[in-house]
């Protein structure tokens, strides 16, 4: 019953972005990600940030959800920023305090790097928030399918991804259920130091693991009993179509990146 809001979860509303083909979105995300590493100017980052804000607005996913995506990386971003500011002695000295010196070059580089990580995570978040897990996995399979000729297990990889994504909420729910059952028996997951807390999780992790194996077994049996035998000659219930607007979106992504690098 408890819906979870964890990193990169699909947010089902109707929007322009939700309607795009998964392949277009995956490619566009890849283009934007690469582009973010090539951008190296204030104007370029402004353009990138403006685009992400625009896309978030167009996705009709509440901005709070994206802040949720950013929370896990906030620590890394802060640390990166700090290191860059303190330990890159480039450009003019802005101020000095004892052995600590802040240079203009370091500050800029730190801000660029932090912004780069934040924009990267937001862009990836846009992809997973607006694309259903199954469509996402199908898209990955389609994009990887040329590699099938080289015996690359594209279908298997996609199926594994689909199943893994599909079971995140299930396992999350199961975890909560078991944690509550153990709480009803007096378990307390919040007291003591880190070691005691880790030990307190054992009564949750053991049944969870046992349950996951049982579930995997059951799923394999259910799939086989319905005739699943891998990707060979398998059709899809939902055919994805690459339309003009998907091509347009992809072209727009390439243009933005080109613009961001050139300015």
């Amino acid at each position, binding site marked *: 019953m408890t*819906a979870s809001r964890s990193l990169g979860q699909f947010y089902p509303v109707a929007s322009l972005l939700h309607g795009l083909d998964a392949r277009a979105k995956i490619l566009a995300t890849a283009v934007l990600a690469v582009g973010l590493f090539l951008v190296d100017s204030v104007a370029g980052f402004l353009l990138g940030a403006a685009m992400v804000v625009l896309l978030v607005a167009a996705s009709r996913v509440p901005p709070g959800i994206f802040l949720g995506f950013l929370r896990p990386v906030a620590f890394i971003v802060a640390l990166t920023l700090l290191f860059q500011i303190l330990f890159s002695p480039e450009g003019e000295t802005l101020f000095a305090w004892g052995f600590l010196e802040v240079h203009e070059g370091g500050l800029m580089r730190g801000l660029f790097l932090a912004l780069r990580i934040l924009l990267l995570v937001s862009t990836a978040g846009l992809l997973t928030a607006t694309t259903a897990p199954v469509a996402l996995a199908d898209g990955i399979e389609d994009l990887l399918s040329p590699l099938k000729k080289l015996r690359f297990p594209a279908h298997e990889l996609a199926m594994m991804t689909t199943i893994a994504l599909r079971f995140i909420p299930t396992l999350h729910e199961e975890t909560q259920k078991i944690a509550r059952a153990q709480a009803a*028996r*007096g378990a307390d997951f919040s007291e003591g130091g880190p070691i005691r807390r880790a030990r307190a999780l054992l009564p949750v992790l053991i049944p969870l693991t046992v349950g996951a194996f049982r579930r995997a077994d059951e799923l394999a049996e259910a799939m086989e009993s319905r005739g699943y035998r891998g990707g060979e000659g398998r059709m899809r219930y939902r055919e994805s179509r690459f339309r003009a607007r998907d091509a347009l979106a992809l072209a727009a992504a390439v243009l933005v990146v080109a613009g961001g690098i050139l300015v």
Partner: protein
Amino acid sequence: MRIELEDVRHIYAPGTPFEVEALRGVSLAVEPDEALGIVGGTGSGKSTLAQHLNLLLAPTSGRVLVDGADARTLKGVELRRRVGLVFQFPEAALFAPTVEEDVAFAPRRLGLDEEETRERVSETLELLGASHLVGRAPHALSGGEKRRVAIAGVLAMAPEVLVLDEPTAGLDPATREDLLGVVRALRDGGTSVVMVSHDLDEVAEVVDRVCVLEKGELLAVGAPETVFYAHLVTAPSTVRTASILRGPYPEVGRPVRFKDTLAALKGLLEGRG
């Protein structure tokens, strides 16, 4: 102890597209020393209600009172000891290498010493007819055996109120009968029992009062004969049979339990013979 729900509402995942209002303002009391049945269809809010009785779920609005005082003033662990909650399919939470250690988990958490813990473990396992399993590994047991052990794991806290969520789901008839016997024995021994179930026949056999939930609202609460005869859709087969016979033969009365219904039918047959 007396637990009272005051206009309790519960909304899952509020403010998201997954929002579900599971309880829509339920007021209900669990009286001391009674067996209370909670029935209703799937999704009627039974399990959500059960988890409010020891505040594992907190109401979105409304209050839970324990002996007249707001339950939030009690310490969480204290409340959970006094109100034992057995979840649906409780065997999913077995984790220790042996049955003995699994049942001992709760008493140890409560700070009982080793001797008291051992005593509690052997007492509860005996009550549930599972003494012979004490040294076995929980995962090697049968479904019915696991269920007995899992329920013992909660009963070992010696709760004043025991809440059972679908305790007999998926069990064989013999284990089921045994468990219903345990429920009766607990109730007669002064432990209040709240039994959540959609098996109306078994609820009818053990409860003093019954409440019917529908879509998160309290449809009816009271003595089984009153509630069941007024809501035949959620009545056990005994009540439905008797209510049909009551038309032509009013002397059947309003039996609920199997034994009483059988006696009423016998009386009817003998009266005609």
